[in-house]
């Protein structure tokens, strides 16, 4: 079978009991740095070496969003990531090996080669494989949240999306349905100010994505998306709101896409000074400075975290490269639960 093959993985620097501010900071750093390292290897190395084929979309500079939001989730919550949220998979316990194998189209990838790049999901870990069509998962997240309430649980869904995705009809249909149903959905926008080559002011005429919330009767707030603590606290508020039956809650995380839209895109349409400006707001460096200032970790400890991650990633890539390609004999499997006669 192509998918659902949980591989146990205990992140090295992320013991869940570390929920002091220092401990949480270390977990933030671990997941943000792991996402940066993994995506960096994919885009800057494996893609250029031709080992990763097809589209590569990374979230460099936006790591605080999936990490700050992701670490508020409970195991039974269901996550609907967008395409720049790799850390959510790690937080859900997806092994870096499975991620690299996914990008390389190997049998050991999360979808077993059925789909590529960040189009991966795992029912057992309650994280959805999005489809390419942007915002299509917003109604799905709404329905999943309605079902959680139907079953009498206090679980919630988290739906992630970019600023550009809020132009799609599905976004509006899904948000509106969630709102009238008071479905427990946390809506998290990464407003990185560009959608492919299109700047925000060509995407919408209101100033903020959060301005859209009140039109649906949904409380919405704007946070600094490069401040992982701010994202974490805002998401906590949103999750509490949703969990207590008050309906959806939207958070707009202001950030910047520090790369092109995808690996093939040099982003020459983005004014260079913006990259320089936002490089100074890098969420990882910012967290590290805070950790040092507050005495949560020393420089050497931080360096150790990075070194550990590099090793983990080296090992995961080696594993993935040794993972076999999927067997063409399996091509016809799993279109249906049971294969119909004549197909």
């Amino acid at each position, binding site marked *: 079978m192509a998918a659902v093959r949980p591989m146990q993985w205990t992140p090295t620097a992320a013991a869940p009991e570390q929920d002091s501010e220092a401990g949480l900071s270390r977990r933030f750093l671990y997941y943000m740095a792991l996402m940066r390292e993994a995506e960096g290897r994919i885009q800057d190395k494996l893609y250029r070496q031709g080992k990763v084929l097809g589209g590569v979309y990374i979230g460099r500079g936006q790591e605080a969003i999936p990490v700050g939001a992701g670490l508020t989730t409970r195991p039974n919550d269901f996550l609907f990531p967008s395409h720049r949220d790799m850390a959510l998979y790690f937080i859900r316990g997806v092994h870096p090996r499975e991620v690299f194998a996914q990008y390389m189209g190997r049998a050991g990838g999360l979808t077993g080669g059925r*789909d590529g790049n960040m189009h991966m999901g795992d029912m057992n870990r309650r994280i959805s494989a999005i489809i390419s069509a942007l915002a*299509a*998962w917003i109604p799905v997240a709404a329905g999943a949240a309605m079902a959680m309430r139907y*079953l009498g649980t206090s679980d919630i869904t988290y739906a992630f999306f970019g600023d550009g995705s809020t132009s799609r009809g599905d976004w509006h249909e899904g948000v509106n*349905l969630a709102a009238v149903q008071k479905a427990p959905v946390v809506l998290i926008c990464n407003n990185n100010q560009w959608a492919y080559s299109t700047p925000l002011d060509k995407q919408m005429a209101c100033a903020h994505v959060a301005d859209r919330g009140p039109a649906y009767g949904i409380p919405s707030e704007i946070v600094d998306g490069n401040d992982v603590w701010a994202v974490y606290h805002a998401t906590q508020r949103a999750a509490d709101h949703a969990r207590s039956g008050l309906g959806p809650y939207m958070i707009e995380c202001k950030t910047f896409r520090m790369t092109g839209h995808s690996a093939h895109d040099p982003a020459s349409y983005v004014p260079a000074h913006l990259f320089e400006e936002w490089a100074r707001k890098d969420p990882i460096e910012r967290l590290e400075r805070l950790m040092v200032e507050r005495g949560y970790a020393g420089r050497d400890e931080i360096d150790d975290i990075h070194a550990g991650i590099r090793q983990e990633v080296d090992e995961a890539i080696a594993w993935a490269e040794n993972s076999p390609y999927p067997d063409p004999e399996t091509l016809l499997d799993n279109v249906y*639960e049971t294969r119909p006669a004549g197909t």
Partner: protein
Amino acid sequence: MATTTYLEAIREGLWEEMERDPNVFCIGEDIAVYGGAFKVTAGFLEHFGEKRVVDTPISESAIVGAAIGAGFIGLRPVAEMQFADFITCGFDQIVNFAAKCRYRWGAGVPIVIRAPSGGGVHGGPFHSQNPEAWFAHVPGLKVLCPATAYDAKGLIKSAIRDNDPVLFFEHKALYRRIKEDLPEQEYTVPIGKAAIYRDGTDLSIITYGAMLYEASQAAGDLAAEGYSVEIVDLRTVFPLDEETVLASVRKTARAIVLHEDTLTGGIGGEVVARITEKAFEYLDAPVVRIAAPDTPVPYSSPLEQAFLPTAAKVTAKARWLLQY
């Protein structure tokens, strides 16, 4: 006296499944308080409550999407499109999301989308279409088009129990026109199995949906002329029950494929292809298709009558084939 209409049969099937499984629920526009545009879910709200009969905003994409999401969490949603024509607004959710989840990441999508389809009700271009072929072309979906009350009830029950996405096209013109006596005891009808609606030896008419009754009338007329016509009711248009179709054609050596959907790209082409690929040596005549012409469904009665395939058109074509 036959008592149960096609519409009531669907209602009974739905009702029984909701009684049987607390995880089955209905979602759609105007289905709760109003009981649905055609009243299929009349009385459901009162009996099952608003948790299980959910009125939504006018958002077909969100209805299908929400059904998919609820399916992920373990429910078995039955979504209603007010008219099959509006299913286009939820097309992406159906063909890109629902149809591909299992193949991509092993996530089953146990949803049913009910959609009143078909012409003959003066509905015009946007309330008369037969969109089954759009979906039969999408791997991962199952597409049902029941013609009888018995099958409508048995198939809606099977659809709800199925772990893959099922499109259930109800023919509007049959809702109140078709009446049958249904078994007292519970039954289901298997998905993917055609039925021999009428036995015969000289010619097979392979059809589904409302055209079953045109075929039936034609077969009666031809019987008076001494011809024995077999009618295969596909019931499920995908996955296609090739075996039953081929067995019938091997017996009769002549075949007409009849549907109300327009000709080009319709299910008929697929059926004909399979017959010529797999039963060519058994044929005594070309396999012909009878379908609506390649136009939108017109509104005005004379135009709509000219558009819809009829028993007379079938009989004429059959005579030609039988003397070929």
